């Protein structure tokens, strides 16, 4: 029995060695620096992975190119660059050419998304925190293009952590790791944006629609509680919701603030009792 297991281990080891024998594993960065590959990037709107990479092996040897998450491919015009969100390994035979679809999102929310005729030039790795966040996203096996896009824009355009919308436990873990990496607090509310009118989820609408979050308060006695929005001048703008006959103790006040009738600016969410006494307050940016 022991001999059989030994034999299996040896066989497996031999198979792995044979499979990788002769191929060089290099990062995209190294492959370019060493002149092993050349590439061209284009856009395929039909596919979900809208970035298409044409890659050539210029060497006489087979090569495995490791395309890193966080690598940015810049457009030659004022068009959003592509940011690779999922790493991949591209195996190329000597002097072979391959066309591969790459999971990528756009990296500049204030510019237009790439078109069919957009040309791409240089490439470089994104900032370390972006690379780390995308690595975490993949390690947590999160397959959510919208979330990947929000993470990218957080780093490329300074979108707030509140704009990263998370639902599942894995997604919340990702946001927690991002906050930890930045020494930032986990955002207490999420700010949703309208989809782009172009219908392309690589474009950013910059139209905030909804703020969602929870506020925890402790009530010393049963009371009526109101959630009010105050502007930066301290003036009450609107009542968001009322919780009548709220029992004493710790309670969670859910917030769903539709932003369609609220002007852009900084506000305070104030929780008051029915005598107008402030119980708690938090800041939000609309």
């Amino acid at each position, binding site marked *: 029995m022991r001999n059989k297991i030994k034999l299996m281990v040896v066989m497996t080891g031999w198979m792995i060695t044979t499979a990788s024998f002769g191929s060089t594993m290099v990062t995209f960065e190294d492959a370019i620096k060493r002149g092993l590959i050349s590439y061209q990037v284009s856009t395929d709107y039909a596919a979900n992975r809208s970035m298409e990479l044409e890659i050539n092996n210029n060497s006489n040897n087979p090569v495995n190119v490791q395309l890193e998450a966080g690598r940015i491919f810049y457009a030659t015009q004022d068009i959003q660059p592509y940011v690779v969100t999922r790493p991949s390994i591209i195996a190329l035979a000597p002097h072979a050419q391959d066309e591969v679809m790459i999971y990528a999102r756009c990296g500049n929310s204030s510019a237009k998304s790439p078109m069919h005729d957009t040309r791409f030039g240089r490439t470089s790795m994104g900032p370390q925190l972006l690379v780390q966040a995308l690595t975490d996203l993949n390690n947590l096996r999160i397959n959510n293009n919208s979330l990947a896009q929000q993470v990218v824009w957080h780093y490329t355009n300074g979108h707030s952590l509140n704009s990263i919308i998370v639902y599942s436990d894995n997604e919340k873990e990702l946001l927690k790791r991002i906050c930890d990496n930045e020494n930032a607090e986990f955002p207490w509310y999420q700010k949703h944006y309208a989809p782009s009118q172009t219908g392309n989820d690589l474009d950013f609408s910059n139209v905030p629609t909804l703020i969602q979050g929870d506020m925890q308060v402790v009530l010393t006695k049963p009371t009526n509680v109101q959630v009010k929005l105050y502007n930066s001048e301290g003036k009450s703008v609107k*009542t968001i919701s009322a919780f009548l*006959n709220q029992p004493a103790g710790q309670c969670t006040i859910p917030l769903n603030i539709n932003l369609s*009738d609220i002007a852009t600016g900084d506000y305070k969410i104030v929780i008051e009792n029915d005598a107008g006494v402030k119980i708690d307050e938090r800041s939000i940016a609309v």
Partner: protein
Amino acid sequence: MKTRALIIMVCFLICKVAISQTPQETSDLRILSFDEWSAKYSTLDDKNKIINAVSICELTIDGKRCLDNPVEVKLNADSKMEFKNLLWYRWDIQKKRWVKESSPKFRIDRNKKNGAYYTTINCPGVYGFFSPDEKLNSGLNIIAPSGCKILTVSVAQKNPSTAYNALYEKPQSKINIPVSDLQFAGFIDVEIIDKEGKHYGLKKNLIGAHIDLRNGFDRGESMNLKISRNDLIEKQNLSNK
């Protein structure tokens, strides 16, 4: 040509400033205290039946008529409370009665211990959660002393919270008010006018001071409150002040 361009430029700037300075409408929901609402609103529905108030609030809007995004209202109700079949009403200013709105949604928590009613308010006005009054009796007859007539009546009592406020254009010697569940600690005031035009109010405003509630009210019965001259105190004529 230059003048035209200047005018266009100025118009453009004015429009831009006007758009950016569009004032944001404000809205405020205020939860009314028992003293506040019971003095203003009778708890009668549009069929003239008494209803029990649970919570009353008022939405005011500084701006357009109704809100695009309504104010969400949640009323917590635990199993100890008799918050069953609560209904949502709006105060009709013309009818001076509470008019039923669409029923609030009731959801029970996962632990099945607590539940809550959910509703929304879009337009300004006074709104409230009410429960129907199940004690169907014939109310309270108030009889003025001989030679006197009743001008106004106010009744307000808590738990269940009801209120009745009436001003009689033609003063009456006997009136019936549709309150059913009278409470000892409830408030009552009756304004009475005599033949000489003097105004009187009740000396004591405690319901229990005027009505013997020990036997209670039976279904279909009415209760009588016969006011004697001794119960009254003359009110100073405000116009003489």
